């Protein structure tokens, strides 16, 4: 077997783009975001390369939200149906919140549905089902699922949400601690922020900073540094080992 042609042309955490040749030779395996063409492994989307043993795959850096079962997201009521409410979930696909999943209480037939959720209300919901045609069902019954009151909404790229939340929520907790704002980050990128007006602005700026630099390292320090400067307070962070 000719091993002379094995070549890895990129390294872990490189930004790769469609058509870019990542590796040559049959030694490597194409994972998500890559494909094999003859003896080459090629990227098929804009992403951050991760190398897991022999598998080359990419974490997407861009793209709209695709609904996934069990995701907790924030949606906006755009229509009131006979059977429930239709929500815009910042995706190509709207979601439906059926009557039976709106509240733990009982809703009579023919009741005025606007008493529960009105047009333009924002709601934290959980996805219960996604069909093959991407029809989405959600529920508002459950821990942390509720209508949102006050505050403001911003939209972030869905792929940056894990970085904004951080490992075990560490990043979003850092921001909450520094600004005193309540923050809920939907998996679909729709994010709710509520607090003092100036602190909300600091929160938005911190989140935008994470969005722009999600692919870089040292982000936690940069964010902490920005928050301390913007709020004028030092942040005590206890690192749990």
């Amino acid at each position, binding site marked *: 077997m000719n091993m002379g042609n094995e070549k890895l042309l990129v390294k872990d955490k490189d930004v790769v783009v*469609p058509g870019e040749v990542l590796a040559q030779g049959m030694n490597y395996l194409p994972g998500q975001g890559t494909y094999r063409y003859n003896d080459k492994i090629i990227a098929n*989307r804009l992403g951050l390369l991760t190398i897991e043993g022999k598998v080359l795959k990419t974490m997407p850096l*861009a*793209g709209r939200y695709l609904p996934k079962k069990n995701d907790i997201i924030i949606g906006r009521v755009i229509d009131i149906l006979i059977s429930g409410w239709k929500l815009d979930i910042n995706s*190509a696909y709207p979601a439906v919140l059926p009557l039976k999943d709106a509240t733990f209480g009982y809703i009579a037939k023919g009741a005025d549905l606007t008493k529960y959720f009105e047009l333009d209300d924002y709601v934290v919901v959980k996805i219960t089902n996604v069909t093959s045609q991407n029809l989405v069902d959600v529920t508002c019954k459950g821990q942390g699922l509720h209508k949102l009151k006050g505050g403001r909404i911003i939209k972030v790229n869905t792929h940056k949400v894990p970085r904004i939340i951080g490992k075990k929520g560490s990043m979003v907790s850092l921001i909450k601690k520094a600004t005193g704002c309540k923050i809920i980050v939907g998996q679909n990128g729709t994010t709710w922020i509520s607090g003092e007006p100036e602190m909300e602005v600091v929160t938005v700026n911190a989140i935008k900073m994470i969005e722009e630099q999600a692919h870089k390292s040292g982000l936690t320090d940069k964010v902490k540094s920005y928050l301390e400067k913007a709020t004028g307070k030092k942040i005590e962070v206890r690192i749990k080992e």
Partner: protein
Amino acid sequence: MESRYNKRLDGRGFEETRPIIARAGVINKADGSAMFRIGRTTAYAAVYGPRELHPKHLQDPKKGVLRCNYNMMPFSAEERVRPGPSRRSREISMVTEKALLPVVNLEDYPNAVVDVFIELIETDAGSRCAGICAASIALADAGIIMKDMVAAVSTGVIDHRIVIDLDGEEEHLADLDVADIPIAMIPSTEEITLLQMDGKASKEELFRAIEMVKPVLKRIAEVQRKALKEKYKG
């Protein structure tokens, strides 16, 4: 065959393109965007999607739909261009769509649409090719799954001489025969996704033009990919 076109009007080499500048992420309201400039032809492209597609009868339950819209700004040509779609712009929209379809994979987006809007802010020949180059970067910038970029440039046959990247002056040469051949290609497979011709050329000349343009298009694809990476640097 002998040719009377032995020196290009602007002094370029026969296989030389005009200077190219490409940038990604120039329109932040869009899901993906790019600017592609070649000489004094500048195209902006913005991608919105996947998003809901209306009217419903245009939806495809098996995969997303790609919809391209090419437009020239009124001040982008010597004579003012009347705003609104023309037969020419609609044809270019269609061939642009066909040029990009072979690389994109929209299977994850049934019933949805990926809209690509291309605006030419100034033109000096080669506008549909610049639009395709910009659109390609914008689609990648939007996170769309695509097996490769699509690179495009206008080749020409001027009195039996093959030239790459015809400019406006060459296009309008009055005393020599000019054939304008816009070509788009998938660089990794060398498959052709756009091929048009305006003017006379022999079959041999056409195939020679295609061979000559291949390395140029591969270089253009590198410029496109570099533009995407630049966005994530520093």
